């Protein structure tokens, strides 16, 4: 089985993508305009986060300028209520957003995958116990649960990441459990079992590679949700704490100076929207590619 990973499996008329097949499908993204725009936006954001501080060298904490300056060539996005350069704060905010988004989604991805595989693979009591907890967590509106956890843990960026990670774990657990069950019913898993292959090997070699496609789509979708949730938590004062800039807290602070300095309210919100849009575009594009049934929809 594992010697022939490119083998196409037709299950009930649907293609189950194996890993090389996945790359073939990813190459189709090139013909997918919306997906490409998404990739470009995300790459641009990553570049800004990584190299922005090297190009735009103003210190985001320096209060050297006059307060609430309108945008000029020297300060393209103006200055805030403490005379700090808004562009350097937006650049730093990109680092915060991407970091929080990635770490919290990795938390959800790893715990969700472990729970989902455990539930799907071992079934019965394990499945029942794990999925009841997952169902109950799923019964909360996500942002409300995130607010409660982040608020009770105490407002900080780390706690916001933990809260977001916990909140989105059930979504990953459910999808992984479902995919696990459908893969486990396939003949090659039965064959592997009859050959006496250990559970861990079946999980790592036969199961995991075959549940990557839905996980990739889910990860991009939840990256956008996680970034949006971090911004909302910071906006409410439950995420990244001042003086460190994050888009959500900048937006919140701008509300007191809105009429005198509207640019302070526009830049951070636009930044959040563009990044989230990038991930949504990519997610939409990937769904078109990875899920042929939905392609025309």
């Amino acid at each position, binding site marked *: 089985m594992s010697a022939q990973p490119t083998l196409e499996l037709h299950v009930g008329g649907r293609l189950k993508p194996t890993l090389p097949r996945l790359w073939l499908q990813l190459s189709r993204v090139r013909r997918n305009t*919306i997906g490409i725009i998404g990739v470009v936006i995300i790459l641009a954001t990553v570049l800004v986060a990584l190299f922005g501080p090297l190009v735009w060298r103003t210190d985001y904490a320096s209060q050297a300028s006059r307060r609430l300056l309108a945008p000029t060539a020297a300060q393209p996005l103006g200055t805030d209520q403490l005379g700090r350069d808004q562009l350097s704060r937006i650049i730093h905010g990109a680092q915060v957003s991407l970091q929080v988004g990635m770490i919290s989604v990795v938390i959800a991805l790893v715990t969700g995958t472990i729970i989902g595989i455990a539930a799907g693979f071992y079934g019965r009591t394990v499945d029942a116990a794990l999925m*009841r*907890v997952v*169902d*109950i*967590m799923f*019964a*909360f*509106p*996500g*942002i*409300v649960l995130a*607010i*409660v*956890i982040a*608020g*009770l*843990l*105490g407002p900080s960026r780390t706690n916001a990441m933990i809260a977001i990670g916990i909140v989105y774990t059930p979504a990953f657990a459910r999808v992984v459990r479902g995919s696990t069950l459908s893969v486990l019913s396939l003949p090659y898993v039965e064959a592997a079992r009859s050959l006496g292959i250990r559970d861990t090997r079946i999980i790592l070699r036969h199961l995991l590679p075959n549940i990557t496609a839905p996980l990739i789509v889910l990860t991009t979708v939840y990256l*956008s949700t996680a970034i*949006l949730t971090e*911004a*909302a938590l910071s*906006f*409410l004062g439950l995420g990244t704490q001042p003086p460190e800039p994050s888009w*959500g807290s900048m*937006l919140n602070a*701008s*509300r007191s100076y*809105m*009429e005198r300095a*509207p640019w302070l*309210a*526009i830049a*951070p*919100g636009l930044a*959040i*929207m*563009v990044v*989230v*849009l990038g991930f*949504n*575009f990519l997610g*939409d594009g990937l769904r078109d590619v990875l899920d042929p049934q*939905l392609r*025309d*929809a």
Partner: protein
Amino acid sequence: MARYALRRLLFLVPTLVGMSILIFAMVRLLPGDVVDAMFTGDSGATASAKQAVRKALGLADPLPVQYLKFVGGVVTGSLGQSLTSGEPVATIMTRAIPITVELAVLAAVTATVVGIPLGVVSAVRPNTSLDFAARVGGLIGLSVPNFWFATLALLATSLFLHWIPPVTWIPPWQDLFGNLQQMAIPALAISVYLMATVMRMTRASMLEVLRQDYIRTARAKGAPSRSVMFRHALRNSLIPVITVIGFQVGTLIGGATIVEVIFGLPGMGYTLVQGIFSRDYTVIQFAALFLASVFVVVNLLVDLLYGVLDPRIEQA
């Protein structure tokens, strides 16, 4: 159908019990409590003084006893008092619930009224520039943070209309017009995401239905295009759209929470966030349990409604 509905209703009980345990555990096991929050900055408070306050508030009891008191309160309807203001929780909730419900209903109605026609137009003319614009517009709608939309809308009204929303909530039974004027921006901010979702779902569902054989049959027998669209296609494509609107109640609750804080509307979300900042356990517990229960119950109703609307669905 009746048996299925009954079984689902019975299943609601363990879910609600599980939720109450989870909420209680989160509120009690995480660090810091209301007494610490009360005495922040007050270094004069001794540990024994704090302990006395805890005892008076019933926080010194063993956790299982406290949990049973919490659940008992839900069952008997005696919800206790806010630990910080001393106001009965029942009073707080009767004041807060109508605000959140009004916001959610206004947002859902706006989203439906705008989203469905946009989705239909987009599906009827697929792969045109209009369709592309609608698709991109839909994705933008999914990406606009509601708190940013609300901030910009406030900015626009204050700059161009010189109108600033009143600081206190106007009940609709006192001044309906004033109330709607006050709720318009918050409700619109919440509805943007749902509007985009409804639009996308209508489009996808409509495209799916338009491919069906019975649409071809209707066209072949010479039914006018308009009648095919509305009588055959739209009616059938609305079933999944209705369920999506129902399942998005979580988005509405979450959106209401944030928007209530921005606009200072004392609804359930605002109450919850205030409770968290002051570690007001009784308020957090009942507010969180209420929001989660609404979410679960609405989802259940939508599930049941789905079966009524589409008899083909098997309810095993």
